């Protein structure tokens, strides 16, 4: 069994109204930043996961996303699996 670091990036699905992103985009524009396109605000969930191997870790993380971490009606997710960082 190996320990992995999992990072799940959840973002609003394309075409879904994202008022939070719009508000942040408006604030950036009012601060004078130019050239900013569409802004989206999502969420990152980070955790460690012990699994047989990387494919199993990914599969498990995907199941978590489908069941809880993302709502497929409104959100997309992207999973990054990397070796666990050495602590201490």
């Amino acid at each position, binding site marked *: 069994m190996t320990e992995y670091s999992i990072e799940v990036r959840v973002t609003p699905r394309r075409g*879904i*109204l994202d*008022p*939070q992103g719009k*508000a942040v985009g408006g604030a950036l524009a009012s601060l004078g930043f130019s050239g900013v396109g569409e802004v989206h605000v999502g*969420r990152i969930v980070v955790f460690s996961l012990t699994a047989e191997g990387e494919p199993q870790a990914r599969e498990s993380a995907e199941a978590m996303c489908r*069941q*809880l*971490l993302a*709502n497929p*009606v*409104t959100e997309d997710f992207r999973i990054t699996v990397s070796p666990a960082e050495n602590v201490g």
Partner: protein
Amino acid sequence: MKIGVVTFPGSNCDYDCYKAVEELLQAEAVYLWHKEHDLQSVDAVFLPGGFSYGDYLRCGAIAAHSPIMREVIEFANAGGPVAGICNGFQILCESGLLPGALVRNRTLKFRSRAVHLRVERAEPPFTSEYEMGQVLRIPIAHGEGCYIADPAVLDELEANGQVAFRYCDAEGNIVPAANPNGSVRNIAGIVNAAGNVLGMMPHPERAVDPLLGSTDGAPVFRALADHLSIAR
């Protein structure tokens, strides 16, 4: 007749629901704790408003997977009447008992005020005491009440008569200006295909007594009581 009100950590309208059942219907109300697996042989379940589990992750997402919800889902799938109000509506969508999702209000503002609703469905177990097209005045209080769903899902809801309530103006017109949160097609409440599960963002339990400013929510509870006594 025994009606259950689920209490999740963060529920804050459970007492209002409980009192509506107890005082308006003179029926037995019981609290169902989120960690329990026992529905205590209730005849109907309310999922109250509030901020279950702090609304962390997404509104209703964690509550949808709480122990009691397994029993509620089983109860609903067996035809038991279940109504989710506000956060309860979000939980019903997250648990898959109702289609679609509730997202941040289009205005980004938390809306807390009375709104007008048009009754789009007048059938048991929850809306049979209303007339079709009747205009109600009921409070809302939510930051994430914008109902969305795929266009195909919306068309199916409309075709099956599953839209229960729509935001309207005082005259009953379905206009954008009357929509407090940006919900698609001004949808304020829906039922499942079988009709026994209702989700609505407005709070009928806050409109059951003249002291509260409106009694337009009372028929939701009376309809349920009628339905349950007939079903007996």
